[in-house]
């Protein structure tokens, strides 16, 4: 087993990731019972509504703390997620075979996030905004906005849920289960990966890090 010595995530990023994960999981459980018809009775009595609102606050407040305190990284994350380039086209072409166990060499070297992770970043940011706006309407403005606005807020809250939940499913599958992503979950626990993993999965990023390391 190679020692995992390349820092991929800062400690506070790891903490933020898991706080946000916990909040989102609680929101999923308490929201899913409204989404899937045969789970509906789980919401009877309204206890899950209170839980949903408590974790909605955590879900919204956590990034409000994290982002300003890690401004440089956050800006980098936003830029990286939304500014796609030629390299991303290469990833998309190579991805189907790569994820079905094809040869690793055929995958062009990736930066800190590969294109799939960038897309997940886009989904997180996009659905966060939709959840936030529609959630505020559903929570605070029932009766103040017209029924039509409320109805569509509910529909878009559900669409955001649909998209975010299924993409989370992809994220968890790739991060935890996929036979190729051997260090992904570990790196989200202590923030580190091995040199081999960094080179083979994020070649472009690793060469940047290695260069910086030599300079210092």
């Amino acid at each position, binding site marked *: 087993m190679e020692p995992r010595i390349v820092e991929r995530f800062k400690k506070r990023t790891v903490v933020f990731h898991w706080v946000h994960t916990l909040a989102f999981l609680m929101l999923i459980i308490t929201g899913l019972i409204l989404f899937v018809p045969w789970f509906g009775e789980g*919401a009877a009595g309204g206890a899950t509504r209170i839980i949903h609102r408590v974790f909605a606050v955590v879900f919204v407040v956590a990034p409000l703390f994290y982002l300003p305190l890690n401004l440089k990284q956050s800006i980098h994350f936003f830029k990286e997620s939304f500014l796609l380039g030629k390299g991303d086209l290469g990833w998309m072409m190579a991805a189907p075979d790569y994820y079905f166990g094809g040869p690793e060499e055929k995958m062009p070297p990736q930066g800190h996030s590969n294109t799939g992770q960038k897309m997940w970043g886009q989904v997180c940011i996009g659905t966060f905004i939709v959840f936030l706006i529609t959630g505020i309407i559903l929570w605070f403005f029932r009766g103040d906005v017209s029924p039509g606005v409320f109805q569509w807020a509910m*529909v878009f809250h559900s669409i955001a849920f649909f998209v975010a939940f299924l993409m989370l499913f992809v994220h968890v599958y790739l991060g935890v289960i996929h036979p190729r992503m051997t260090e992904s979950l570990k790196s989200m626990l202590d923030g580190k990966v091995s040199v081999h993993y960094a080179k083979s999965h994020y070649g472009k990023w690793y060469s940047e890090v290695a260069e910086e390391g030599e300079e210092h």
Partner: protein
Amino acid sequence: MEISRRSFLKASGGLAGLAVCQPLVTKTAQAATDADSASHKAMLIDVTKCVGCWYCYAACKKQNGYPEVNRPTPDDPPDLAHNVWTTLHISEKDGVQRFRKQACMHCTDAACVRVCPTGALSYNELGFVQYDKEKCSGCGYCTQYCPFEIPRLDEEAISNDRIDKCTFCFSRVTAGGQTACSAACPTGAIKFGNRGELLEEGKARVTELQKDNAKASLYGDSDVLGGLHVMYVLDDAAESYGLPADPTLPAPAVVHEVIQWVGIGAFFAMVGGFSLNYLVARARIAREEKK
């Protein structure tokens, strides 16, 4: 082995799909056939006979534990609320005030029942729309989807706001009695009875009114949300009495159901896809490592 797993996933996905459709299908099927059922009770409200005495309002409040001693003034009629399940809608024509008793219409194909996620709202075999307050989660979807804006929640209550609306005097009616409002009505404007008979009576009354007034109509026959269990004899356009001319299930409710079904389907498709991906990727990587 791989094929059997795939066909298993396919089969379980199909079964799950059926399970999703089943409650919705029965809900609609029930809605489609029941309005004409002989057992169904209903109320027929003849606005031409209403004098605005507020007896129905007072009887409703007393029956449901919110006694009220003051008669409301027509200039400031109380709105429906968690403790006001019946009120009068007041409109004016040629300087004359007109009254329409306003409460739950007990639709056959009710939007509130359809959007209620917890099953708190349901159909009674006598035709009316009943609710179980213990099951209500307070989401308020019913208040926002009802085309007549009937259900209300206690807006003052923090986090334990629950649905309230006309219950069709559940305890009185199931015991063989009539509703409190119809019992209290001194002019016969509110009649309680079997829906089929009241429908005929309403049609006859409209025919009579139409001799002098072409605008007279019956509101709530089977063309309105599968048939209402509160029908009106009107002497003017429905809108002028504050009733939607063509109430329907709001489109977002249907869009939402489609999203739910597609979402559930997509989830099972992904479970299948990931299983396949895992098996193929693991086998190929293992073969590569052997070389």
